[in-house]
């Protein structure tokens, strides 16, 4: 029996379509509706139409500020650490070591981020690195429960997500392009800037988007390493939905976060595209 084009397409797309409708669009719609509602006095949601929740957003200013400084900062830091590593893995290392090193990059994923973050509590806490620095007479330093601790935690946690897309982009890079550049008179650092870097932008873009988007929703690492002092929008949402059960306000915060993220992603995409990357090369977009 011949399956028509349209039927084949329907068959292929139905599972994903249902999945997205049920688990993405429907909840989004619910959140949007809730954000215009009111708090039920006994907790939860009471129907209504008011902008009160949005007017109340400045109450969570600190959470937005922390998220919108530490998420970009964490993304940039992860990028700066991941790029050289990915470059080394894709271009410099011998085939013999490549697989081993790649596995080492993902090994941390084998244990829960919760457990790994607790390890950082010890490392950054009074008996960890600060104690070591003190022993060498480098002064007193408080690391745990600071924005720096959260930054360390998120860079550590999200590094592999940055390394892999960049690694793949660099691995795909045709090495004869670099030879051609050298042949035409470009010294190594210039062929890096003119060929390698632009050609790996799709990977940089994908990695950055992935890390940035996931970071804006992060709540575990700030909760553990920020000690309640450095909290993200994610923590605010946990609090609003689970503790104070103010669903209407929580929804407004969530909507605001989504809108901000969309704007940031759009700006970033445009900036990168100006860098000369083909649309169809930009993996995630």
């Amino acid at each position, binding site marked *: 029996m011949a399956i028509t084009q349209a039927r084949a397409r329907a068959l292929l797309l139905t599972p994903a379509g249902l999945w997205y409708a049920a688990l993405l669009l429907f909840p989004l719609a619910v959140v949007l509706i809730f954000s215009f509602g009111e708090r039920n006095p006994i907790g939860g949601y009471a129907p209504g139409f008011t902008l009160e929740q949005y007017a109340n957003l400045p109450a969570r200013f600190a959470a937005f500020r922390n998220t919108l400084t530490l998420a970009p900062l964490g993304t940039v830091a992860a990028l700066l650490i991941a790029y050289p590593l990915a470059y080394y893995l894709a271009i410099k290392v011998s085939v013999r070591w490549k697989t081993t090193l790649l596995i080492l990059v993902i090994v941390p994923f084998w244990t829960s981020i919760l457990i790994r973050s607790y390890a950082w509590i010890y490392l950054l806490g009074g008996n960890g690195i600060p104690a070591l620095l003190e022993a060498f007479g480098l002064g007193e330093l408080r690391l745990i429960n600071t924005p720096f601790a959260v930054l360390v935690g998120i860079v550590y946690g999200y590094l592999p997500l940055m390394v892999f897309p960049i690694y793949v982009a660099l691995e795909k890079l045709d090495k*004869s392009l670099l*030879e051609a550049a*050298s*042949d*035409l*008179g*470009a010294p190594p650092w210039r062929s890096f800037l003119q*060929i390698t870097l*632009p050609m790996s932008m799709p990977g940089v873009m994908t990695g950055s988007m992935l890390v940035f988007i996931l970071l804006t929703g992060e709540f575990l690492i700030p909760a553990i390493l920020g000690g309640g002092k450095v909290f993200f929008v994610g923590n605010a949402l946990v609090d609003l939905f689970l503790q104070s059960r103010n669903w209407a306000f929580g929804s407004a915060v969530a909507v605001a976060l989504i809108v901000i993220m969309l704007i940031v992603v759009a700006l970033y995409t445009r900036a990168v595209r100006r860098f000369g990357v083909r649309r169809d090369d930009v993996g995630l977009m």
Partner: protein
Amino acid sequence: MRSSSEEGAAQDTGSEHVAEFIDVSKRFGDILAADRLNLGIRRGEFLSFLGPSGCGKTTALRMLAGFEPPSEGTVRIDATDMSAVPSHRRPVNMVFQHYALFPHMTVAQNVGYGLRQRRPRLPKSEIGAQVDKALATVRLSDFGTRRVWELSGGQQQRVALARAIINEPTILLLDEPMAALDAKLRAEMQRELLDLQRSLGITFVLVTHDQEEALSMSDRICIMGRGRIVQVGTPQDLYDRPCNRYVADFVGKANILSGEVVAREAGQARVVLGCGAEVLVPEGNPDGRRHVDVVIRPECLSLSATHQDEDAAIRARVTHRTFLGDHTEYLLQAEGTGLLQVNLPRQAERTSGGHGVGDDVHILWAAGTGLVLAADD
């Protein structure tokens, strides 16, 4: 190896050589990809490296370009030792087998890439003008703003060519540049390459495993086998005077027969072939061996229904006959020699009437044709 007196003179002055390999070897682990190469490339010539896959042609070219350092020996360009000169400072440019065009740049940006690497920087207007000129040279004037992936294979190849000649290299290196093109386009590009070489006066070094391409384009051909240079010479040299069985077999069609030398006189050997026929064959480097291989090209033999005394004759039966217009190819089975090929010009066939499959004929071998081959090394 054969070397004409002219070549000897060139080696004395040295200045005629734009590049030289001096005892150059290259090892990749256990693989000896280049084995003591010695070769002088003459200024302005069109030289081809010809050989089967994996014989080290690309390796030789890459050592010239500076992508692979030799394990031993010296590569010289313009009489300067290149050991310490990285590829971006060598006065050579390369057309890569798969073109290696920069996909994130337009055609014009690709072509101008070499000029943009110059320090001090060239003015933009100057770069623009030279790019236009190079694009005109390869007949792609209207394509400057196109993206390279929008072009056909032949067009991409011309972009690669324009990009490589814009820096006016001392030597242009071409690694199987025509391999990805269809037969018609390939013939067209071969002509264009030759025209380009004549008009630019640049030395071209081409790598190919297509013997027709090498024969039709080159001033000289360097035949390689298993990492070594086997013979260097003009296409005619290689065809008429192959130094051994390997070259005879690789260049053109060849009948190679083994035989026994019964007498030697004045540069010629009297050889009794396996089938019993006795032939008189020139010998390039008489080395006193008794058992030798003898090569004769298919067009040097002729056929006759009856035995004619003045020529040595091999009795054979026609097994295949292929009419090719200007000539006819005969495959014949002779006792004690295996399959032999004879090409008869159409004109000769018109007068003699030709022969059919299954006919018993005599293959005629004129005294003094063919060649006694030296032993393979």
